[in-house]
């Protein structure tokens, strides 16, 4: 019995260690394969805006910007929609409609990203172009909407990413809401809460999971490659304009890796991968810490939280 336990512990422990080894291995390989770029550019790599394979000058800033900007925009669009879908399905939806809706959101998640990209090129981009062309002049004067109506650019990428992220976030958020104990809702009703108040209470109860679901969507938006590269215009520039063609880290790796015969170019691309790895890691750590601070009682947060938890009458 005792030896069985030890064997079990050791073997599962090995699997756990394997995971750490894989992540560590990725970091090591990304570093060693990028070493000549890291040595040549140092920290400048994060700030330089130039990407010139001929002159051998490489900087990741436009790609970092493009990746974060597109992912944040996508999240701004996707989060309310995903949450709305999740709340409707778990709380308000008539039983006969629930199954088809769940099926459809999961179907969206199963569509390969290249198909999203094709749809983006042939449907979304022309639509965005018309939208951009119809922008009134006073709006075009704002930095957010400046530039010629190309269709290809940040706006198309953000919308497409949002559509791709919604099924992931909404599925997880739905499961989280489903896990809220029925007793919580019943208690709210018993205290005279309206339906909206009861749902708000459930949302609060499930807050960590909901934030987790949104962060899952963010992670997916950061790493999405094919669909984004097909609609974002692939131009390395830092611009706040939604109409400007831009570039993301994953897209530049996919686009240039096959033809990068020059060692420095190759290493710069791998370093972009390393930067993406670090940023993804940082985003995950930050969201974990955030969730942990929310779910860990006994801290200062508890005081802030209490009033809402009682589902006060509006």
């Amino acid at each position, binding site marked *: 019995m005792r030896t069985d336990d030890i064997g079990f512990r050791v073997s599962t422990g090995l699997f756990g260690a394997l995971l750490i080894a894989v992540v560590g291995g990725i970091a090591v390989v990304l570093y060693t394969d990028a070493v000549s770029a890291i040595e040549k550019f140092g920290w400048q790599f994060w700030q330089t805006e130039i990407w010139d394979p001929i002159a051998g000058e490489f900087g990741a800033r436009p790609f970092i910007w493009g990746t974060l900007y597109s992912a944040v925009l996508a999240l701004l669009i996707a989060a309310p929609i995903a949450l709305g879908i999740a709340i409707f399905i778990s709380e308000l939806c008539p039983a006969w409609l629930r199954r088809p809706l769940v099926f459809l959101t999961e179907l969206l998640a199963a569509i390969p990203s290249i198909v999203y990209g094709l749809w983006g090129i042939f449907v979304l981009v022309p639509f965005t172009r018309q939208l951009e062309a119809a922008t009134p002049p006073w709006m075009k004067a704002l930095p957010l909407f400046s530039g010629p109506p190309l269709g290809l650019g940040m706006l198309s990428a953000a919308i497409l990413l949002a559509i791709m992220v919604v099924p992931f976030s909404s599925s997880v958020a739905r499961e989280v809401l489903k896990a809220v104990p029925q007793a919580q809702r019943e208690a709210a009703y018993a205290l005279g809460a309206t339906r909206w108040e009861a749902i708000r209470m459930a949302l609060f109860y499930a807050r960590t999971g909901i934030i987790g679901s949104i962060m899952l969507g963010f992670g997916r938006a950061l790493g999405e490659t094919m669909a984004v590269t097909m609609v974002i215009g*692939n131009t390395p520039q830092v611009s706040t304009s939604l109409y400007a063609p831009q570039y993301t880290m994953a897209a530049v790796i996919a*686009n240039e890796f096959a033809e990068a*015969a020059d060692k420095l170019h190759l290493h710069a691309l791998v370093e972009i991968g390393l930067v993406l790895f670090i940023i993804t890691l940082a985003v995950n750590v930050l969201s974990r810490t955030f969730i942990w601070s929310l779910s860990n009682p006994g801290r200062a947060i508890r005081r802030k939280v209490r009033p809402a938890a009682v589902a006060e009458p509006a």
Partner: protein
Amino acid sequence: MMKSWTRFAVAALVAAAGVTLAAQNVQINGAGATFPAPIYTKWFAEYNKAHSNVRINYQPLGSGAGIRQITERTVFFGATDGPMTQEQLLAAPGKVLHLPTVLGAVVPVYNVAGLSQELKFSGPVLANIYLGKITKWNDGAIAALNPGVTLPGSDIVVAHRSDGSGTTYIWVDYLAKVSPEFKKTVGVGTAVKWPTGVAAAKNDGVAAIVSQTPGAIGYVELIYALQTKSPYAQVQNASGKFVKASIDTVTAAASAAAKQMPADFRVSITNAPGDGVYPISSFTWMLFYQDPKDKLQAKTMVEFMKWALTDGQKFAGEMGYAPLPANVIDMEMKTLATIKVQ
């Protein structure tokens, strides 16, 4: 298909058992440029029909990958649309030979509504458009090349490739030859820093931007324009003539360049002299070690190349490539004989 698979499986089993067959089975791997991939695939399939013991696999990963893999000896042969640089040749562990296989061309495609006839461009005008210096379709420089054509005053949307590509290499190689400023600010390579425009992956991505965006201009391979029946522009050549790309005008470019073909075949034939020459043409190359490690593969591949340079050339025209001029083939046959097969 099924039959050849079965045969392959049986062959593998027999080989695994250590039995030597009368005609030894040879499997050869190569990787590189995507541009000639259709004809290479066709060649390998046709050659396999006549020599069932020879299987050549080709992975169209891109010219850069072809150079990388031959340098690392992970494949027997590589393929590229831009010749290896001196630096890259020195980095290889043995002497690498360039052998031209066929020729291709890159053509400008555009989307301007309501034109009475097809547009004509000159090299410097194309360079200035891609430098972002000519920004309107009714710019005086474009109008001067197209008398009698009413050009709109709309913006030019410049489209180029986002992926590193041999097509880009040929295009910028030409623009750099005709425009000193382009050479200085952009330079020549499979991926460059473009001063203007939007980018999409592959020929179809560029073609999609051009076909959807009013006022767009882009560049694609001739084969792609022919297959999709996209309209493309005439380009003024070094002799001042406006020439439309076709199998004939590309072959003319090769014949013009063949007179000064260097012994290592690493030559750019963009902007070649001659009246009927299309100026944005290029060879595409296969890469071999002069002293390959595997002698059986070497022998087989040399035999294959002899076939590709003679019988194989007749497939070129029908697939949108231009066949090699006769004197280039003669030179290559001599180079093939220097590959050490013993």
